[in-house]
């Protein structure tokens, strides 16, 4: 399996600010994904990030709000921009490795 780390593990932010979440994997992977999981709920895919191309966003998510970088095969960042309390959630990255998705530990974001 792939081992994935995320930074920060949690943060408390003020509304109107932005937070960049980092995702690092211990193997080179083509596909990385970013999900949002609101408390007590299931996972919702935000976007798919392939190295060397623009991220593909799911319905309801836009690049201006959630810009993503994918500079190489082991790293990606997700920025949550101009935050509001509604952005309080757990943000998870995952990777496709050996035809299976493996998840990081998540970043718990609270927006005040």
């Amino acid at each position, binding site marked *: 399996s792939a081992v994935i780390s995320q930074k920060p593990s949690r943060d408390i932010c003020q509304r109107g600010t932005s937070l960049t979440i980092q995702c690092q994997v211990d193997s080179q992977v083509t596909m990385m994904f970013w999900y949002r999981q609101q408390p007590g709920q*299931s996972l*919702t*895919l935000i976007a798919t990030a392939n190295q060397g191309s623009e991220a593909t966003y799911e319905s309801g998510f836009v690049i201006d709000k959630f810009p993503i970088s994918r500079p190489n095969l082991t790293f990606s960042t997700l920025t949550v921009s101009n935050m509001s309390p509604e952005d309080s959630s757990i943000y*998870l990255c995952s990777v496709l490795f050996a035809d299976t998705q493996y*998840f990081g530990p998540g970043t*718990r974001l609270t927006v005040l």
Partner: protein
Amino acid sequence: GESVGLHLPTLSVQEGDNSIINCAYSNSASDYFIWYKQESGKGPQFIIDIRSNMDKRQGQRVTVLLNKTVKHLSLQIAATQPGDSAVYFCADDTGTASKLTFGTGTRLQVTL
């Protein structure tokens, strides 16, 4: 879009008993199914997966059963232990686990 759902939001099982977590999916084109375990404060952990050319697959203390006729998936955990307490998610995809659709989750509570 189509979605994957779970029948029971909470399942309480006595330690040592077997657990069965059920999942219904609606996309008849789905051919890949996966179960994740998510403990509090952690990211989803891969448990077991199955492709549509199989109807049963076994792992360590876990078995996944797939009934394509009625679009039903189940996860069986043998000799349930307190460490099995978590939320369990099923997910499906039509190809290579690159576009997973997650169910709502079932909380498994193991009582002593």
